[in-house]
């Protein structure tokens, strides 16, 4: 049967079943005209010409091209926020395969997909932002700046993108009906997971370590030798929150793509993830305090930047952490979901602060974001969401492929239920 499927992969039946959601072509394409898709199309129609103009006229065509503030929205959003929020893959893979918490298996594939898509689009943002994007493979093959933290980031993002692709391969091969390849891909699971955790530990922290080289530019409240550790720990609760958010959105907007069994256990798993996020955020809060004490810049708290620091620390770390605890203690998954959104906003705020607002804080006149830059980011993010939805609609992500149903069932039975 398998060979039949792979032979007829480009046949009309196969395309209709696996690409057009089982509908005839005409019905499928008519069905694409929905309000959300129209909005997405408008955003893309505005943004794509801007992206093209960036390659014809240079970066100045879409950014404010500042020599003082060379990094802008593309990196603050695409790299410094995108990568920690895409830590979902390594966290859930470690949870299920390394720590043996198998009841979280239903959330593993969505997490790996979120991670893979997140990293892929981080690279897309780099391709827009780099002056010479066609030199992107140079640190791997041409010239090695081994003393640079950026060298580590480049290598690790490339390697981890490949690792996550391998981790997601079983889903792709199930979709394609390539049983032999699927078995081969499953065999490397543990190795890929461990490799993925190593890479993630290092490049999540390396994103923070990049700013160690700007001691006189980054505001002293945020500059700390602890930056790598802070970035790593916050990526963990960022990833856990993203798993919660992703499953919430899929259940809300694409309920048919989620197995009924997964629907039933989701609330219980959400509480479990909330517990993990609460613990990580508490750790992060403690580390932030240690970093503040070590920096010994208490006097700076009494300034505009200090006020923002306190808002970040209390409003975007302590309070969402408290919300997680509250949701878990009262067994209220909706509070945990709310806390997850809150925590993600807080993490993005932190990354924007470190990579944008608090950088070059001593310079008098600074522009942060131009309209065109924001439109390009909105465009790429829209495409990212569409790609994600496209995959979830077709591949076995939140559901099991009919042929592999029995193997996973026993995990679902063990899942905790909300009280």
């Amino acid at each position, binding site marked *: 049967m398998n060979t039949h499927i792979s032979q007829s992969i480009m046949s009309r039946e196969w395309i209709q079943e696996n690409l057009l959601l089982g509908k005839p072509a005409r019905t499928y394409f008519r069905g694409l005209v929905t309000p959300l898709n129209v909005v997405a199309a408008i955003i893309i129609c505005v943004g794509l010409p801007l992206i093209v103009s960036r390659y*014809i*006229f*240079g*970066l*100045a065509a879409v*950014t404010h*091209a500042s*020599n*003082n503030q*060379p990094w802008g929205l593309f990196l603050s959003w695409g790299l410094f926020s995108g990568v920690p929020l895409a830590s979902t893959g390594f966290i859930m893979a470690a949870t299920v*395969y*390394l720590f*043996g918490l198998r009841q979280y*298996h239903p959330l593993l594939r969505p997490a790996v997909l979120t991670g893979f898509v997140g990293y892929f689009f981080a690279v897309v943002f780099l391709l827009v*932002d*780099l*002056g*010479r*994007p066609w*030199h*992107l493979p140079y*640190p791997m093959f041409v*010239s*090695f*700046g081994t*003393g*640079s*933290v*950026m*060298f*580590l980031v480049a290598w690790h993002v490339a390697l981890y993108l490949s690792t996550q692709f391998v981790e997601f391969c079983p889903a792709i091969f199930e979709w394609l009906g390539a049983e032999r390849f*699927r*078995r081969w891909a*499953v*065999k490397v*699971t*543990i190795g890929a997971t*461990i490799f993925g*955790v*190593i890479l993630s*530990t*290092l490049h999540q*922290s*390396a994103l923070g*370590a*990049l*700013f*160690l*080289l*700007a*001691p006189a*530019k980054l505001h002293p409240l945020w500059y700390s*030798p602890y930056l*790598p*550790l802070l970035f*790593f720990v916050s990526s963990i609760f960022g990833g856990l929150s993203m798993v919660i958010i992703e499953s919430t959105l899929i259940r809300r907007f694409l309920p048919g793509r989620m197995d009924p069994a997964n629907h039933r256990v989701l609330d219980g798993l959400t509480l479990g993830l909330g517990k993990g996020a609460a613990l990580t955020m508490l750790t992060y809060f403690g580390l932030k305090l240690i970093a503040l004490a070590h920096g010994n810049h208490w006097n700076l708290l009494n300034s505009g930047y200090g006020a923002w620091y306190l808002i970040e620390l209390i409003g975007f770390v302590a309070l969402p952490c408290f919300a997680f605890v509250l949701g878990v203690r009262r067994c209220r998954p909706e509070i945990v979901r709310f806390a997850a959104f809150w925590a993600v906003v807080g993490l993005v705020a932190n990354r924007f602060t470190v990579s944008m607002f608090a*950088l070059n804080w001593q310079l008098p006149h600074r522009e942060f974001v131009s309209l065109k830059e924001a439109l390009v980011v909105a465009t790429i993010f829209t495409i990212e969401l569409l790609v994600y939805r496209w995959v979830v609609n077709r591949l076995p992500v939140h559901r099991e492929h009919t042929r592999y149903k029995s*193997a*996973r069932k026993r*995990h679902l039975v063990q899942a905790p239920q909300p009280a």
Partner: protein
Amino acid sequence: MKSTRRHFFKTMATGAGTMLLGPSAKAMSSVEQFNGYPERVGMLVDLSLCIGCRRCEEACKRANQLPPVEAPLNDSSVFEHTRRTDAENYTVVNRFANPQPNQPAVYVKKQCMHCEEPACASACLVGALRKTKEGPVVYNPDICLGCRYCMIACPFYIPAYEYHNPTSPKVRKCTLCYERIKAGGMPACAEICPVEAITFGKRSDLIKLAQAQILNNPGEYQNHIYGLDEVGGTTWLYISKVPFAKLGFPTDVGTTPFPEYTRGFLSAVPVVFVVWPALLGGFHLFANNRQPAPAQEDGVTRNDEETEQ
């Protein structure tokens, strides 16, 4: 405070790996003292001599084939705003009011400082920026990605980018006229200076000259050679009769060479690669083999990991 920070790096702070293997990471990050190439050149600026004629700007543009100066040299309106270097201006002269009453304004020439251990070079992931043994920090555009991390790293806000160039954008900054120096000449700005405010020579000689100038004019100069120790030392050295903090010089950059700030973190990287597989593999084994499997289910249990996805 600086020594605390530096010490902190070497001991524990930068990665989870260092927390587990503090002592060995510390050993790896211990630094050999680099005192610089002995014959390297230097540039000494006596700010009290500069008259703000901006001929150095003009000479620099000619030497580097840059478009001519925007405002004529006798147009003093350029001094109304403090300028920075950009892709078409490798050096700029700014005017600062003299804090002492009835004293003439101070003109400060600004350009790449050509650090002894440059932050930009340690930031570059392809080694497009490098410190030459003659002294200049030079740039190879052919391998540059345009990530602009060098611009983030530079504590003096010097490197600029060709944002308007779509096909071959380059990081632009003073080259210290590397080609001229290799041919036995001197940088164009030092050569043109009509009042000899800029002195070109061996860096070690220039330090003695600067010290002598300060000593021989008691009470006139600030007792500080800017660039002698800043960020671990720079090729350009400045002496001044007005405090440097009043002249736009960053005074919070410390004396630690910037590569030091990331060395500790980079030392932790191989540690994570070696320790994590054992640690995580151990977690895996503990978590998945808590109890011996019953004999009749043996085959099922062993293949568990492979058959499930």
